[in-house]
């Protein structure tokens, strides 16, 4: 039984009156250390989190508006990046990792992947012109066979960021035990275990602060790409059944979120096209989730520290590509963030791929929005799979 009990509705009431106490996940660490979880739960209403990093499995649904004469677009290119037109006449889905049609890819290894779907999304959000090319076979109702035009985001009737898998709860760290440099989505990995890369905001990361998804569910309102967005489903590859520490924190991938929001309100500071050398294109996405402190358990969970969060180090020269499931060892985000980890007794530099300073900025922004009454909490309409694992 919890000693403190608050509902999201009560917390929203306090936000509207401008009385809510909102702190970031970093600040919560000290508050719980000084006053204990129960006292913290009584005083703090919301803890804000953040993460900003390349997130594959991102993209956007765009409606282009009808041309005259009409076209039922079956093939679509935006700035020469193919998009999926097999949805409806002028609806399309643009995936973040789709490279330009004539990209040399990895023919000259490692490929540069200068431009792709993520960059088109950034260009749109930045208000830049995007060249659209549509092809069709022509029908009685949609006779046009080719349409070519420049558009800006404001011209499009609808544009919805729709990311089937973002916000991984935790993730692998990359290492390379082979004798030559490899280029991966975990960055450039030097030979003979020369560096370890990691990609999580750790103690600031949303799902590491609510390890059993007790407050985050379908309908949770979030910071997405600089605007308001929603958790609309659990993400692809969502897997709550991974090993967990005594504090409930997952020791590997774990949960993921399916998120959506109005692209027209977002900003290029928080949606940035990225080129990962030797791997491909993607989109860096800024996400922040407010966590209501409904009881002392949530106060304890949101006070989690980098030193208490562990991630597996995986060899990306063999074990990852082969899918062996082997790990080299576990390391804490505390060690990773301080810049060196001990791997088999040897000191190895740790390199982040996810921006901690930007994650902090998101948590601060969300805190200001909520404290000013501009942003209230969404009440989850359905929990995520895995919420039943919490034992109290």
């Amino acid at each position: 039984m919890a000693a403190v009990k608050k509902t999201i509705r009560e917390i929203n009431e306090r936000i509207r009156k401008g009385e809510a106490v909102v702190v970031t996940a970093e600040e919560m660490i000290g508050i719980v250390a000084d006053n204990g979880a129960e006292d913290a739960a009584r005083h703090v209403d919301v803890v804000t989190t953040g993460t900003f990093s390349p997130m594959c499995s991102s993209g956007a649904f765009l409606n282009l508006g009808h041309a005259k004469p009409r076209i039922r677009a079956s093939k679509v290119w935006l700035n020469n990046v193919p998009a999926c037109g097999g949805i409806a006449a002028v609806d399309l889905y643009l995936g973040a990792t789709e490279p330009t049609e004539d990209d040399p890819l990895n023919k000259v290894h490692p490929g540069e992947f200068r431009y792709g779907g993520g960059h088109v999304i950034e260009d749109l959000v930045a208000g830049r012109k995007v060249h659209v090319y549509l092809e069709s076979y022509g029908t009685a109702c949609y006779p046009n066979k080719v349409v070519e035009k420049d558009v800006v985001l404001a011209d499009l009737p609808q544009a919805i960021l729709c990311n089937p898998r973002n916000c991984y709860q935790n993730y692998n760290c990359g290492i390379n035990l082979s004798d030559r440099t490899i280029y991966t989505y975990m960055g450039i990995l030097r030979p003979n275990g020369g560096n370890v890369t990691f990609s999580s905001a750790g103690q600031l990361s949303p799902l590491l602060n609510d390890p059993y998804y007790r407050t985050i569910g379908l309908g949770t309102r979030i910071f997405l790409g600089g605007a308001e967005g929603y958790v609309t489903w659990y993400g692809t590859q969502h897997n709550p059944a991974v090993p967990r520490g005594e504090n409930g924190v997952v020791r590997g991938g774990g949960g993921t979120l399916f998120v959506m929001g109005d692209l027209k309100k977002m900003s290029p500071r928080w949606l940035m096209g990225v080129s990962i050398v030797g791997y491909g294109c993607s989109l860096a996405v800024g996400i922040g989730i407010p966590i209501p402190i409904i009881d002392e358990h949530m106060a304890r969970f949101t006070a989690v520290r980098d030193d208490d969060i562990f991630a597996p180090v995986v060899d990306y020269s063999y074990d990852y590509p082969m899918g062996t499931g082997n790990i080299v060892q576990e390391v804490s985000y505390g060690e990773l963030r301080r810049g060196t980890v001990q791997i088999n007794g040897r000191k190895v530099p740790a390199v982040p791929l996810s921006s901690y300073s930007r994650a902090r900025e998101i948590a601060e922004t969300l805190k200001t929005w909520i404290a000013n009454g501009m942003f209230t909490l969404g009440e989850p309409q359905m929990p995520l799979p895995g919420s039943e694992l919490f034992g109290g």
Partner: protein
Amino acid sequence: MKNTYVLHFDTTNYDKPIVYRLIRDYDLVFNILKAVILPKQESYLVMEIDGDVRQLELGLHYLQNQGVQVDPVTKNVHRNEERCTHCGACTAICPTGALAIERPSMFVRFDPDKCSACGLCVTACPPRAMEVSF
């Protein structure tokens, strides 16, 4: 001592065996990183020059006497602050520590004085914030 320089040649000196004299007379070791040689137009070479400090100084002096404009390249590596997200990915490959993480702020500092203009960070940076121009 090893430094990287951009050597700008003009229409009067592009076809002289200047680099050859640098090696022979000043005992300098060099590594050409980039060369743009256009007959009868302005040309440039980006070279890493290695050798004794005194010989290096004399060699650079010789180049200037030949009408070659010599610029150390550091000033030509630039970080586009709007694109830099301070992720840290570039610190995996920057050989000189010019790109390094400051703790505990986790901002990535770019120190042009430490930069050798090797250009490795250009493709290693996912948002392509690092720009090298000559």
